[in-house]
């Protein structure tokens, strides 16, 4: 059984959605509390959305020092798949597992609505089952989703094709319409949109299911030793 750890910080609020989306894709998904320093033999880790530690100081700034983050970093270092959604993306950036940072939306307002994003990278464990160039509609819900990074980092991301999700219409002022990226190792993914909120026809949208289906397929391949 494929084991997927969903990390819960105080203030996480998309944890159940992430758990359910992973389970729906067939994973043995379970919660890991932020104080645990063990991922309990996870094959993949999801850092869900929310407002860990109330976004005090900066979104993700305190959460990155949670004991569980050492285990997440070790898992990532070993090549294990990690997905950060929204606040989880902010935590991964603060932790230095992904480059750049997420700042206050250019329009100053919290934006909560479905948006269209293009899948530009299909070589990650969380996008592999999509067709390159596919456009999916998924919800965003954030006040601090404006992706920023140094020019050198943005150049590198673009040159290495590590921008994996891009907004068709920029909702927050992100540089290059960036909605999601992957690390150099190709195993740590961060995205502002919420695929877990659109992963079941029951809620009227299922375009995000592919993220979790991709995860399952990729983990299966990893297990079989097919890179």
């Amino acid at each position, binding site marked *: 059984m494929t084991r997927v750890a969903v990390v819960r910080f105080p203030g996480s609020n998309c944890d159940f959605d992430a758990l359910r989306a992973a389970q729906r894709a067939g994973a043995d998904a379970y919660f890991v509390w932020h104080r645990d320093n063990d991922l309990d033999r996870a094959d993949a880790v999801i850092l869900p959305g929310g407002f860990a530690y109330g976004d005090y*100081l*900066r979104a993700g*700034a305190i959460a990155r*020092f949670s004991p569980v983050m050492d285990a997440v970093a070790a898992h990532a270092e070993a090549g294990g798949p990690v997905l950060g959604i929204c606040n989880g993306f902010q935590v991964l*950036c*603060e932790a230095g597992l992904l*480059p*750049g*940072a997420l*700042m*206050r*939306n*250019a*329009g*100053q307002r919290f934006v909560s609505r479905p948006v269209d994003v293009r899948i530009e990278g299909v070589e990650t464990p969380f996008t592999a089952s999509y067709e390159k160039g596919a456009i999916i509609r998924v919800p965003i819900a954030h006040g601090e989703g*404006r992706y*920023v*990074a*140094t020019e050198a980092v943005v150049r590198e991301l673009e040159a290495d094709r590590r921008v994996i999700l891009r907004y068709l219409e920029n909702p927050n*002022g992100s540089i290059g319409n960036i909605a999601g990226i992957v690390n150099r190792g190709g195993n740590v993914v961060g995205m502002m949109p919420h695929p877990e909120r659109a992963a079941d026809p029951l809620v009227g949208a299922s375009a995000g299911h592919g993220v979790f289906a991709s995860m399952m397929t990729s983990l299966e391949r990893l297990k079989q030793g097919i890179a």
Partner: protein
Amino acid sequence: MGRYLIDVRVMPRERLLDPQGNAVHHALAALGFDEVAEVRIGKSLSLAVDAPDAASAAERANVMCERLLANPVTEDYVVVVEGEA
């Protein structure tokens, strides 16, 4: 050993858009304060730090900024020792 009061000022990096500052700038203009050319909003943290002297208190505060208080990608910071508590 003394206790030093330290003001850490964290500001969004100069060339980065500061939507909060812009909104306040517009509000000031609406109130008739046309003389305001720019507003930028950051945060100020007051720390009481135990250290042998002011210089080492400031040095520790700088390390705190590097590790936690400021984001090296988006923010600049200034550490000012305001005096002994």
